[in-house]
C-alpha cells in the first residue's frame, strides 16, 4: 500500500469515528499537528501554574492557601500527563521543556499576563478555568485516544478548579463594595485575553479539525463560553467590557466585538507583559534542578 493509500485509509477511519491509539501508524501531518497541539497544551499547564502560584504565600486564609496549592499542583500534574502523551508522538520531554524555556514553542496567551490582585485569582479560577474546561470537554471526543484518556483525567480536576474559583468569586461579589470592585476590575482587565484564549475564528481549512484532533471550531467554543458564563456574571451584577456583547435571539447566537488580534499575535509570539519573567522562572528551575533529573534517571552526577 502506498503512503497516500494508507493516509486515505487513516482518514476514512477518523471520518468513521474510530479512535487512534498510541503506537499505530500515523500520517506525518497528523503526527505533527497532534504533537504541536498537545505540546502547546502541556506547556500551557505548567506555565499556567505560575500566576496563581505567586498567590499561594499571599492567600487570605489557610483554607484558601490549601486549595490554591492543590490547584497549582494539579496544573503541573496536567502538564506531566500531557507531556507523556506528546512523547509518544516522537519528541522527548527534555526537548519539549528545553524548547519551552528558550521561547521556541508557545503557551496559551492568558498565562503571559500578570495576576495582580486576589480578584485576578478568583477570575482565573472561575473564568479562565471555565474557558479551558469548555475547550477540554470538546477534546473528550478527539480522534487520538491517549489524548482522550488524558482529558478524562484532567476534566474532572478542572471542574473542581472551577468550583474553587466560583466560590472565590461569590465571596467577593457578595462582600463589600471594595471587594466587588476588586472582581469587576479583574473582569475588565482579563476579558480581552479571555476572548483571545479561544483563538481567532477558525480557518476554513483547519487541519486540527480535519484530523479530528479538535472537534469544534474556535467560534463555537467561544459562543458556548458566552452562554455559560455571561448570564451568570450579569446575575451577579458584574458587567463585561464589551458594549456590543448581546444575545441575538434572531440569530440564536451572541454578537460580540472582535478583540485586538494584533495584541493576541504579539503575546503568543512571546512578547506578553510577563512572558520573559515567567520563562526565566521556568528556565532557572529547569537548569538548577538538572541534578534531580539525572539522579532520577540513575545517571551519576559529574564529579
Amino acid at each position, binding site marked *: 500500500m502506498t503512503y497516500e493509500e494508507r493516509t486515505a485509509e487513516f482518514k476514512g477511519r477518523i471520518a468513521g469515528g474510530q479512535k487512534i491509539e498510541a503506537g499505530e501508524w500515523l500520517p506525518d501531518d497528523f503526527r505533527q499537528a497532534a504533537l504541536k497541539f498537545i505540546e502547546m497544551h502541556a506547556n500551557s499547564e505548567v506555565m499556567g501554574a505560575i500566576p496563581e502560584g505567586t498567590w499561594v504565600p499571599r492567600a487570605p486564609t489557610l483554607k484558601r492557601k490549601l486549595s490554591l496549592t492543590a490547584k497549582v499542583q*494539579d496544573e503541573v500534574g496536567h502538564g506531566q500527563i500531557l507531556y*507523556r502523551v506528546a512523547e509518544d508522538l516522537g519528541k522527548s520531554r527534555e526537548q519539549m521543556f528545553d524548547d519551552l524555556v528558550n521561547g521556541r514553542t508557545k503557551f496559551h496567551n492568558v498565562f503571559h499576563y500578570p495576576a495582580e490582585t486576589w480578584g485576578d485569582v478568583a477570575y482565573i479560577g472561575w473564568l479562565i478555568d471555565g474557558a479551558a474546561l469548555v475547550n477540554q470537554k470538546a477534546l473528550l471526543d478527539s480522534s487520538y485516544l491517549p489524548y482522550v*484518556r488524558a482529558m478524562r*483525567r484532567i476534566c474532572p480536576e478542572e471542574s*473542581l478548579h472551577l468550583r*474553587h474559583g466560583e466560590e472565590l468569586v*461569590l465571596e467577593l*461579589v457578595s462582600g463589600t463594595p471594595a471587594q466587588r470592585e476588586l472582581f469587576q476590575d479583574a473582569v475588565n482587565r482579563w476579558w480581552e485575553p479571555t476572548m483571545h484564549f479561544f483563538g481567532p475564528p477558525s480557518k476554513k481549512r483547519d487541519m486540527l479539525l480535519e484530523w479530528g484532533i479538535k472537534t469544534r471550531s474556535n467560534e463555537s467554543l467561544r459562543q458556548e463560553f458566552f452562554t455559560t458564563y455571561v448570564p451568570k456574571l450579569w446575575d451577579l451584577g*458584574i458587567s463585561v467590557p464589551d458594549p456590543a456583547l448581546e*444575545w441575538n435571539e434572531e440569530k440564536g447566537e451572541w454578537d460580540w466585538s472582535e478583540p485586538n488580534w494584533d495584541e493576541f499575535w504579539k503575546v503568543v509570539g512571546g512578547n506578553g507583559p510577563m512572558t520573559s519573567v515567567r520563562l526565566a522562572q521556568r528556565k532557572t528551575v529547569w537548569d538548577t534542578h538538572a541534578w534531580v533529573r539525572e539522579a532520577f534517571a540513575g545517571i551519576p552526577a559529574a564529579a
Partner: protein
Amino acid sequence: MAVFDVFGKRTADDDWTLVGGITAPDPEMALVLAKETHFRHKEGVAYAVRRRGEEELHVGPYDAGVLGGVTDHSYRRQEAYTGVGGRQKRVSRQIQERGLRIDRPRPPGHPSRDTEPDG
C-alpha cells in the same frame, strides 16, 4: 528511562483500565509516580503499572482506604465545594434584591432568562 502504562480500578469489581502513562527508571518508581499523577484525588481503589512491551503487571501496594491520602485532603475533591451552586443562586437573588443585576437578554434555557427585573 522506560515508559510504563498506568492502570486503575474504580471499584473492586472492575477490570484494570488503562488510564495513562508515566516514564520511570524502574517499576518501584513508576508506582510512586503513577500514584501521585493519577490517583491523588481518590480516583480508584487500586492501581498498577506495566512496562510497555512487557506482560508483567506491578500492582500498587496501597489499598482503597489509603489510596488518595489518609489525612483530610477534601479541598482536593468536589466534596469540598458541595453547595457552591446553591450559594450562586442565593447570591444572585441578593444581588437582584439590591438592584445590581444586569438585565439584558439571556439565551433560551438560562435559569435567569425569565426572571422579572427588580422593581
